[in-house]
């Protein structure tokens, strides 16, 4: 790459100051890394290394940039699997940070940069050993394109045009990427996307995946564009893309319709490959679509509410019309929901590889069996589940399965087995991940919880086995007596539980000593509709997700028992802490004179608790809307909805509300 085209000396002070700051911060991060690797931490390190690289390259300090680049590569690998971090990796990172600091100091003093070839080789080799890819030679070369999950099937609308006489005109287009372009693949992709805004692209050569990977022989791309736009408009559009020339464009004269045998589908055709007609839609459009369908539902309820105020004689025809409208809107909403459904395979397809990697590093032998991966869930839920599921898998292999010798001694097959079974259960999807390992030692969990000061001995004694198992989801808990580099250090299960609950799901754990552990996620099919218990506090109305409500007890405040100077509520066999919802929300409640007060028993992070409210207003199925800024920053609010009477209602995230 050519050097910068300006006088860099002017920037030298700024460079050395800012690069030093980044390297110091990076050094601090390495120390934290030794205490426990998290994605956020690696992300931060990656950003620092990345900044140093960019600055050094801009100053034409190529050795410095290359060293920072190799560090960035290593951090990129770590970020993909933080469990790979260990003391020797941290050592190498620290050494690189020191070396980079040396570079910056030398640069600031106008001295020659130190030679870091040995360290560069070490970094490449380490990274190669972690990715299983051959080490890139330390000659300055662009980094390989980051490996990503295979893209979702790309297919677009439109039956083959030949069979459709009404299809818009087609143009044969030839593009040429400037050979001097730094990233020809991205250039080609950009041109393809830009043309895609005008119509449908067919017969793309080379195929899109090759273009994205930068495999564009002679920089030439040919395609056919089916569009209503004029040749002139296409030319103008291409003129806005830098570094890509429109070499030629010609309208295609339609051939007589030929019915092609289905087997003769051109493998290079990007669109219209599938016999089933599909259309590619951006996710955001689907989100907006759902949003509007939800608004329509709300607006319909509002009309229904208003009709109640009409004179009785006018009501029947109006009600009938509203019923019909509601039916149509509900149908539309359902269709939108259906369109958002994505097979869970999007997540599970990556797991066999992950399982192999984790198992190999722990010297375990594992069989991963996945069933039901074609079951579909709302895209938003599938997206949220990716990390939690990977974490559960890691836990199962790392902590669940015993080492081979231990298994043989226990008369178990030497090869451990992890099963992922996904199935539909009425309107829920059950995702179950089980191992045939040693099981969770319930008594040990109790001891650890007390040792770590998370609960008192008395609290623990009262717990059932099921409740005890859920304690592994407490923040800051880890059962791993042997803390390993694979499963992290106790971060995780609380995040798993939170993610699952965030999408309206529940997590259950079952274990049998010596036989294995099962994590069962029960998930809603969609996120957007929730069942609420509506409660009143003063003049306000709030919604509590029904899934979180265990029951309601009506009693007088002065009949509550006291424990450690705080009121508690007797609920079944247990005694629950009482919170005034008005105090948590800092809104004025009713004067506390009412004889009987409803106490709603809800599940918090640390077990159940009772919320004192002023009134119960009933149960309602509502369309949940996310909060926009700045409301999304308020802890304790999970979303908002609009009731039939037009009143907006906040939906509470009880666990956060209490801890906030």
């Amino acid at each position, binding site marked *: 790459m050519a050097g910068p085209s300006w006088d860099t000396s002017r920037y030298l002070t700024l460079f050395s100051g800012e690069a030093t700051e980044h390297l110091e911060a990076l050094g601090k991060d390495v120390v934290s890394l030794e205490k426990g690797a998290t994605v956020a931490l690696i992300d931060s390190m990656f950003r620092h290394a990345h900044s140093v690289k960019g600055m050094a390259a801009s100053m034409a300090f190529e050795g410095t940039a290359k060293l920072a680049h190799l560090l960035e590569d290593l951090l990129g690998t770590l970020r993909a699997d933080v469990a790979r971090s260990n003391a020797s990796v941290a050592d190498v990172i620290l050494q690189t940070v020191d070396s980079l600091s040396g570079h910056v100091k030398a640069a600031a003093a106008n001295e020659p940069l130190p030679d870091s070839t040995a360290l560069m080789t070490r970094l490449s080799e380490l990274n190669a050993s972690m990715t299983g890819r051959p080490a890139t030679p330390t000659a300055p070369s*662009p980094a390989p394109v980051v490996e990503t999950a295979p893209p979702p099937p790309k297919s677009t609308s439109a039956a083959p045009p030949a069979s459709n006489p009404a299809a818009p005109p087609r143009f044969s287009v030839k593009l040429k990427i400037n050979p001097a372009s730094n990233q020809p693949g991205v250039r080609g992709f950009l041109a393809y996307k830009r043309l895609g805004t005008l119509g449908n692209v067919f017969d793309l050569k080379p195929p899109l995946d090759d273009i994205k990977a930068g495999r564009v022989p002679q920089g030439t791309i040919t395609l056919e564009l089916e569009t209503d736009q004029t040749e002139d408009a296409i030319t103008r559009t291409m003129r806005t893309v830098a570094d890509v020339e429109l070499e030629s464009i010609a309208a295609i004269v339609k051939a007589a319709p030929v019915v092609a045998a289905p087997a003769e589908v051109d493998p290079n055709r990007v669109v219209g490959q599938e016999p089933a007609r599909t259309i590619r839609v951006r996710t955001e459009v689907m989100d907006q679509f759902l949003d509007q369908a939800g608004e329509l539902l709300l607006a319909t309820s509002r009309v229904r509410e208003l009709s109640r105020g009409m004179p009785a004689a006018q009501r029947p025809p109006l009600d009938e019309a509203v019923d019909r409208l509601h039916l149509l809107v509900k149908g539309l909403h359902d269709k939108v929901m259906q369109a958002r459904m994505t097979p869970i395979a999007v997540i599970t397809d990556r797991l066999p590889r992950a399982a192999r990697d984790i198992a190999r590093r722990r010297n375990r032998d594992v069989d991963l069996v996945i069933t039901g991966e074609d079951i579909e869930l709302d895209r938003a839920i599938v997206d949220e589940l990716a990390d939690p599921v990977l974490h559960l898998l890691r836990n199962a292999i790392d902590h669940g399965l015993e080492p081979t010798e231990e298994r043989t001694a226990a008369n178990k097959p030497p090869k451990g087995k992890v099963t992922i079974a996904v199935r539909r259960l009425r309107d829920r999807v059950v995702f179950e991940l089980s191992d045939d390992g040693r099981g969770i030692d319930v008594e040990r969990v109790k001891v650890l919880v007390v040792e770590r000061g998370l609960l008192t001995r008395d609290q623990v004694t009262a717990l059932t086995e099921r409740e005890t198992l859920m304690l592994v989801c407490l923040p800051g808990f880890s059962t791993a007596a042997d803390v390993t580099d694979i499963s992290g250090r106790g971060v995780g299960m609380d995040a798993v539980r939170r993610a699952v609950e965030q999408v309206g799901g529940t997590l259950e754990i079952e274990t049998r000593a010596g036989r294995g552990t099962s994590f069962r996620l029960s998930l809603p099919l969609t996120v957007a509709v929730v069942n609420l218990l509506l409660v009143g506090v003063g003049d306000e109305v709030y919604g509590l997700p029904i899934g979180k409500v265990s029951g309601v007890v009506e009693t007088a405040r002065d009949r509550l028992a006291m424990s450690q100077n705080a009121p508690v509520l007797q609920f079944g066999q247990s005694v629950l802490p009482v919170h005034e919802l008005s105090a948590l929300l800092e809104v004025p409640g009713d004067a506390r004179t009412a004889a009987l007060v409803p106490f709603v028993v809800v599940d918090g992070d640390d077990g159940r608790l009772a919320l004192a409210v002023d009134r119960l207003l009933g149960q309602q199925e509502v369309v949940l809307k996310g909060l926009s800024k700045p409301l999304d920053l308020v802890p304790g609010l999970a979303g908002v909805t609009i009731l039939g009477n037009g009143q907006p209602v906040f939906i509470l995230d009880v666990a956060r509300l209490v801890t906030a």
Partner: protein
Amino acid sequence: MAKKVLVVDDSVFMRDIIKDIFAAGGFTVVGEAGNGVEAVEKYKELKPDLVTMDLVMPYRNGIDATREILRGDNKALVVMCSALGQETMVMEAIEAGAVDFIVKPPRAEDVLAVVKKVLGEA
């Protein structure tokens, strides 16, 4: 009138370089932001003709910020600033609606060529 540009990068150093390039090229840099959150706010406030957006930043990365900016203004022109090795991220940004990209270290002639194309001035 000179076109208004918002420069987003978490590095002051990099922002200075890019700002100088724009100043020399006859553009007005109306604002700068050091992270994705700030970028979205500044965009709404300053309504620039064009944004240059770093990919890797704290709080909110350039792709998310781009998506958010476009959600508020679907005509927004966002040009990504990427480094070699970030091809996948750049393509993701293009999917998210970025109109073009420049490669770091930024060379004045490349930056101005891309930006002028995007603005339809070339």
